[in-house]
């Protein structure tokens, strides 16, 4: 029995250590390591697309503040929506976010990336500046990462600002438009999310 228990614990430990990567807590190094990891995964020809999606999803789940992002993009109605509905929305948003992120990252995986520096805005936020280097038919793209550092040992990404345009804000305004056209019915937004996920 003791041996079986040890075996199970060992398997669980090995599984976790094989699939969980901890990045440096310094925001600049954190972004460098994370993006290198993501690009390496997406450009790895020895693994299938499904495996790539799984790895990217795992990296995002561990290092992006998807919960906060989901609430932020929902806008003010998050304060009045029923808790159970909000939970269902959060689950759908997570699926939507992971699908959309994998697709966006795949689009840029053949580009070279460089982290330029970081600027601590407050105890909660550090902005890490980076750029996607110029390539054929694609000028240089400046990307700022809004890193949430409330827990300094576990930084989390909250937003990507591409050439001064916030992706989180764009998403929030897109969701607001869907809500406005449907009398602030969160069900309509969730239906749109489901439609995107099932595409």
């Amino acid at each position: 029995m003791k041996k079986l228990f040890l075996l199970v614990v060992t398997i669980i430990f090995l599984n976790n250590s094989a699939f969980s990567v901890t990045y440096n807590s310094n925001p600049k190094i954190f972004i460098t390591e994370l993006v290198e990891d993501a690009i390496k995964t997406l450009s790895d020809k020895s693994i299938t697309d499904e495996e790539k999606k799984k790895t990217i999803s795992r990296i995002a789940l561990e290092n992006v503040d998807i919960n906060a992002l989901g609430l932020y993009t929902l806008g003010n109605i998050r304060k009045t929506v029923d808790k159970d509905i909000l939970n269902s929305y959060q689950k759908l948003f997570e699926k939507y976010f992971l699908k959309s992120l994998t697709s966006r990252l795949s689009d840029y995986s053949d580009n070279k990336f460089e982290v330029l520096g970081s600027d601590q805005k407050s105890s909660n936020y550090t902005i890490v500046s980076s750029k996607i280097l110029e390539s054929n038919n694609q000028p240089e793209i400046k990307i700022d990462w809004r890193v949430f550092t409330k827990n300094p040992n576990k930084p989390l990404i909250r937003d990507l600002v591409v050439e001064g345009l916030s992706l989180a804000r764009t998403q929030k305004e897109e969701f607001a438009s869907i809500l406005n056209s449907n009398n602030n019915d969160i069900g309509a937004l969730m239906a749109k999310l489901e439609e995107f996920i099932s595409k």
Partner: protein
Amino acid sequence: MRLNKLIIIILASMMLQTNILKASDECFEGVSRSIFKFNMGFDKAVLKPVSKAYNKLPEPIKDGTGNFTSNIATLLSIPNFVLQGNFKGAGDATGSFLINSTFGVLGFGNPAGAMGLNVQKEDVGQTLATYGVKSGCYFVLPILGPTTARDAFGLIADSYVDPFSIATWREKDFLGASGNKIDFIAVKSASAVDFRGDNMKNFDSLEKNSLDLYSSMKSIYLQSRLKKIQNSDELSEDDWGNLDN
């Protein structure tokens, strides 16, 4: 001429409401969405294929085209810097235009940029914003794309202060330079194709990942205008509200 006057009257009446309406408010969303659909059709049928073909041209030709149209656009920045009281900006823009037009062979090269003289683009919409004129409501123009009441008014005003527009679109002699409407359309079209070609991947990615492309484009346009007016990439910290706690 009558149509011109009518457009100016409509825009002026919309401008009067700019302090009441926010940029996020729509002037006439249903119509704008229809025009947006038409613009997307135009993009698919004309602009995207032309830009794809343009992207296959050798790099020096594409760089030269981008530099040429950008150098001409600098002409609009000069009077706007003056109107904003930014005389250093006006001096830099004038210097950049003169250097690129001479040493840069009519603007096909960008020696001014290599010398560190990178000029921010300014237009009448931005100038009005520095005077405190709010953006007013948002709408979409056929072919020209997203705009606001203030920026649409600015677009018409641009043709009166931009030396290139005066010489070409208005066909009036400007310091000995003259042209015609075809020159104007050719340069603006080249600029649009160059921009579309540069952003091929970005547009495709946005289109693929949007739940409502119309709203995404609106958000991007409004954020981009705000960034140009503020001449800054500084992020708004309070946007995340009480989620930080």
